């Protein structure tokens, strides 16, 4: 019998004590070619901002490569790929990063540029997992196997970050008719 996997528990309202890093939001340096800000805004089912949460991001570099020993293609990059930012009093967060390249997907497919995003907060007994895609990648998005598996265009649209000056912005709704798609992985 395999060992019981340790269950998740909420990070609670005081996660800042243990999880804040000064360089968490800066995945790349300001002078990195292609550096952009990706901002987000998180709203709960009562329309209130999630002001005590924390977002983590994981993504490939511009060539679709991960700085991880778990990448079976081998590691060809030292791109950190990981970001972390707490939400502010209005529920906003942001990271400075680069837009990832396409990444191979299941069965020979190609995944459109995307960023895995987790949310940790009071009231979340498990971390939430979603993905950010880019609204200006309509061609690659149309061929993306994960987006294709979602129930309809409205659901797909909830994952799209919209171009704004200096980067992209993503609105996240935890509940409601316009709720963001979250994943069980």
């Amino acid at each position, binding site marked *: 019998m395999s060992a019981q996997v340790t269950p998740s528990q909420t990070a609670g309202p005081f996660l800042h004590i243990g999880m804040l890093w000064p360089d968490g939001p800066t995945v790349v340096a300001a002078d990195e070619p292609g550096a952009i800000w990706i901002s987000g805004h998180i709203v709960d089912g009562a329309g209130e901002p999630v002001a005590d949460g924390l977002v983590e991001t994981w993504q490939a570099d511009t060539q679709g490569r991960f700085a991880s020993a778990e990448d079976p293609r081998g590691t060809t990059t030292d791109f950190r790929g990981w970001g972390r930012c707490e939400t502010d009093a209005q529920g906003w967060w942001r990271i400075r990063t680069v837009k990832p390249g396409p990444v191979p997907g299941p069965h020979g497919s190609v995944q459109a540029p995307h960023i895995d995003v987790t949310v940790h907060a009071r009231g979340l*007994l498990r971390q939430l997992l979603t993905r950010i895609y880019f609204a200006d990648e309509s061609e690659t998005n149309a061929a993306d196997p994960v987006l294709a598996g979602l129930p309809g265009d409205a659901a797909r649209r909830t994952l799209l970050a919209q171009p704004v000056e200096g980067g992209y912005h993503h609105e996240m709704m935890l509940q409601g008719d316009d709720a963001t798609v979250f994943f069980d992985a």
Partner: protein
Amino acid sequence: MTDTTTGEGFALPSYVRKVGDPALATPGYGSTTYRAPNRLEILPHTLTEVTGPAFGEDRVKAGDADLTRQSTDEPLGERIIVHGRVIDGDGRPVPNTLVEVWQANAAGRYMHDGDRHDAPLDPNFSGAGRALTDAAGSYRFTTIKPGAYPWRNHPNAWRPAHIHFSVFGRAFVQRLITQMYFPGDPLFGQDPIFNSVRDERARQAMVSAFDLDETVAEWALAYRFDIVLRGRDAVVFEDDEEEQ
């Protein structure tokens, strides 16, 4: 196009579904009401999910694992050792992975602006610690036993004493945020967060064990907390034409 998107036959692990996790919607825990999503879609484990960040020694300073020596004076309370191994569901150790902890002080008060509990802060205790697991997946903290504290979830609600743990693992889908509890806590029965894990065996996986062997005479008691991350299913191949 680069060679990163097509034409490579490579094997990807798939991680076993977690059994025993709490339901996001847990009515007894009031904060879930407006925050728990109503539905989840299934995400296959692709390259993005089976890879994950790697952090090195540069992320951990000497002394980060000793929460009793972050100030000029020692914090008040019962000094304890908290140690264990990070392994995955297959029993493999997870070496060189970052473990972050945070907790209340001995009086049950967090060093945080949002904590209004009427209990004293301890200027010598931040409650934050960090460690990297060694080659065997082992970690070790020295800290102060946290106190229980009241919260306003329901009448006379108290959290059992706990230490928050954040563990990275090898893959983004192994990422774990949990809480370590202490054996025999009389507050377990009325705590909706602890009991959000419905399965008894799974709940017990969050409870540390008193560890007499690791106790340091004349100095500190010890608790052992082994952390088990998700293990792997059989390997699946991304490209059927190039089986290895």
